[in-house]
């Protein structure tokens, strides 16, 4: 990889100052996407500002409010006893990201800031209607994901946590790409007092998206069979060597049904 200068600030403010002072710096949260990208010379940041020393790790459940610190690893989310009762769907999703070694390093903040169209977390964040807390503001999930590899984050803005209200019921069903094992289609369904939200990752040509028709159908009947007669449109879906838009459309429906069945 190209040379770069590493920084490990010990506070959010110091991290913000470090990125502001760099020529073309980037944040390093777990590195499980950034480092492979750098190794392949597809990214060449001048500076790497490691966020793992600024104290953003940990999960708190306060009443029904769940807050996951940005540098909490996938393994920590997957194994959190608090989450297992507050939002098992999220814990299960985290336990299926990458592989065990990746889960020991990768972080929720890194994942959502990158907004890879095949990443798992964005679907949960969107379906749970979470709030992304940064060092400068709070951003609703519906506003946060703005397209493939693109978010509402400003330059140098740091995600500090993700906060959401625990749903009544939620689950994630993932159909992995046979090669990469990233989500070729993943559907997160969440039922809360205010309704049902369904978010789809891996399938949209614009990244993660909500599926309005499914939300309506599931709001009227929270059951897999509620989606039986629903036709998922191929419009706006990805098509590549692994899966056509038609196949992804099918997977969206099947995964959504399986997620609802799993959510119970």
């Amino acid at each position, binding site marked *: *990889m190209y040379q770069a200068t590493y920084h490990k600030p010990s506070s959010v403010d110091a991290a913000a100052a470090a990125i502001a002072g760099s020529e073309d710096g980037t944040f390093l949260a777990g590195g499980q996407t950034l480092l492979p990208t750098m190794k392949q*010379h597809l990214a060449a940041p001048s500076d790497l500002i490691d966020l793992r020393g600024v104290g953003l790790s940990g999960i708190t459940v306060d009443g029904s409010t769940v807050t996951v610190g940005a540098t909490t690893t996938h393994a920590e989310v997957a194994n959190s006893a608090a989450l297992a009762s507050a939002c098992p769907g999220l814990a299960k999703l985290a336990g299926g990201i990458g592989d065990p070694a990746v889960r020991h390093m990768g972080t929720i903040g890194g994942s959502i800031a990158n907004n890879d169209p095949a990443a798992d977390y964005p679907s949960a964040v969107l379906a749970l209607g979470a709030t992304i807390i940064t060092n400068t503001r709070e951003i609703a999930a519906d506003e946060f994901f703005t397209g493939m590899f693109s978010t509402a984050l400003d330059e140098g803005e740091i995600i500090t946590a993700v906060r959401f209200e625990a749903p009544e019921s939620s689950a994630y069903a993932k*159909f992995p790409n*046979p090669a*990469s094992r990233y989500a070729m289609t993943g559907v997160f369904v969440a039922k809360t007092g205010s309704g049902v939200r369904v978010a789809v990752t891996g399938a949209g040509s614009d990244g993660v998206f909500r599926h309005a028709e499914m939300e309506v159908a599931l709001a009227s009947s929270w059951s897999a069979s509620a989606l039986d007669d629903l036709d998922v449109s191929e419009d706006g879906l990805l098509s590549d*060597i*692994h899966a*056509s838009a038609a*196949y992804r459309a099918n997977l969206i429906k*099947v995964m959504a049904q399986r997620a609802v069945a799993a959510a119970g």
Partner: protein
Amino acid sequence: MSTGIGARVKRKEDKRFITGKGKYTDDIRMENQAYAAFVRSPHAHAMVKGIDKSAALAMDGVIDVLDGHQLTGDGIGNLICGWAITSRDGSPMNMGAWSALATDKVRYVGDSVAVVIAESQAIARQAAEMVIVDYDELSAAVFADKALESDAPQVHDNAPGNLIFDWIIGEEEATNDALASSAHVIDVDLTNNRLSPNPMEPRAAVATFDEAEDHYTLYTTSQNPHVARLVLSAFYQVAPEHKLRVIAPDVGGGFGSKIYIYPEEITCLWASMKTQRSVKWTGDRSEAFMTDAHGRDHISNVKLGFDANHKITGLKVETIANLGAYMSLFSSVTPTYLHATLYSGQYVIPNIFGNVKAVYTNTVPVDAYRGAGRPEACYMIERVMEVAARQLGVDPAELRRKNFINEFPYQTPVILTYDAGDFDGNLDKAKAAADVAGFAARKAEAASRGKLRGLGYSCYIEACGIAPSAAVGSLGSGVGLWESAEVRVNPVGTIEVLTGSHSHGQGHETTFCQIVSERFGVPIENVSIVHGDTDKVQFGMGTYGSRSGAVGMSAIVKAMDKVEAKVKKIAAHQLEASEDDIVIEGGEVMVKGTDKKLAWHEIGLAAYTAHNLPPNMEPGLKEGAFYDPSNFTFPAGCYIAEVEVDPQTGVTEIVQFTAADDFGTIINPMIVEGQVHGGVAQGIGQAMLEEVVYDDDGQLITGSYMDYAMPRADDLPFYTIEHNTTVCPSNPLGIKGCGEAGAIGAPPAVINAITDAIGTDELSMPATPQKVWMAIQANAVPQAAE
């Protein structure tokens, strides 16, 4: 516990691997070592107008940037194909020139035009990006069938129409007549998908030129270091053989892809002389996808005729084989003599005709990959048999059984003479182990869970231990296919075996010791194997084509014969007995029926002290042998795959995989079963997951594990393995060969099972979830309309 033939001896070589002490090529570090990085073409097809090295040369730490004109200017020869194939019109194959560094034209994405030598790998790689190559891009011929079209771009000037050869085997007219008069002709089009071998250790080379000695040393990831030295010397003119040492240390898998001598090794050797530095190159996985020889890539039409009694009347095959941008070392023999000679399968087929057109394209060179030609043949025969059974409405196992060859030796219409086999027995064992009788009930139970269950057979036969040398020479081989061995008994009785076979996972350090331990009654820990170094082992043809058991071990047996003869002479002399009465047993050399004996180590000592040897006997106890087999060996077996398909997603799970193999004598069942596991896994990979994909411009789409689906643990079943042994009459141990069988036999079993489950034969490899789902959808449409 026995450590002889048939014992499940734990591997002797494991300790260094499980403790991280294996020595692979990238683990070697030479004094004064520099690093190479290649400047590779981003285009599939382009003229090279010029190379601007100035920016790279100006970088700190860059030692030199070398190009193809310098390389050819120094007399380094072109890479060659080592097997001459003659077209049906008598003309020789059209081999285009392949320089290790391209001079005027690049022919695939990854073709290298220059090399940077620098003080570190990171600097070398960055500098390689700073070398500016002026390309004049040409349109590319990417797909084999399209490359034959009249308006296709020309890859090599001396291969008009991109045709390398147009080769035939068998009797065309008789076969056409037989098909014309058949009661049924089954006609199928099949594609054998293009694969990337993917040994887990990427290729690497460390080359050192010693100016004072005018001598080169090359550490490299090779399956056959002596062949590498031979080719590097005789054809690529790097150095004469006595001035070149090639060492293949621990090698992390090969599967065929490390047979060949690639541009990188040649370039590193030459660059070490140019720069007076040790030059190291370690490929990464991306380079492996871009440069390691790919496998398979056939498009075929198969016609199989039957009479009214369902006996086969004739087989006609027309195949287009994609050989990529250059002819790799064994690229020509893979789709011809390693392929079409197996068209008879396990069946009596009175008339066979095959035509193979080999084609240049702007893709990575294609060569032998585990199975090499035989998986392509097996897939055709076993798919068309299954389709035939479905179209004829008969049981697929019984259709096969009805047509099995059951008398040996059996001369096929396509050169080979099968020497031994028991095809009925293989099928019976597999059916019993797979509980085929209970399949209907399992299928019904699966249906109750919404799953489609299917069962598929594959009765494979293959030919390995390719030989004898005179025969392969007459078919065009540039090399002999014997093997050498040397058995050295030391003065203390310990034994070193030098072998020309090369182990890169096959466990030779254990199995080869077993046959020596058994023969001389020496504890297995007192036997060691030396291999992989041209300075230590006199010569060898290496390990590929499942030849190390049948050919490599046979050479050891022949050398042991000579050792035994000398041991008996020494013992007879010292014990004052007749040679004929001497027996070697349990580590002792004794006179039959008496208590007169010598310990094994006493014989060793006697041979080297030479105080009391028979008159005129030379001192020492070391014998060598070159063994040239009398025939190929013919491993065969029956595989049964049972699958469940989720019709909602097309996901297929292999719920049971049964292998009944006939490998002849088995030296170490544990290791043989490991070979079957791995071979079947690669076969399942081909059937369900793996495919190299290029786009229309010749860009490699599947350039990493992000897009090329490697079989992972949860993709694969646990295997049930049975053995049904008929001893091979063509070598002294009765061994057949087990390294490739799984990769040959598994793909049709899997596809036959999936197509059985989903009720349509319109399915190609790899049967990914998407393809299976689409096949189910396509099949459902007309039914819905009914």
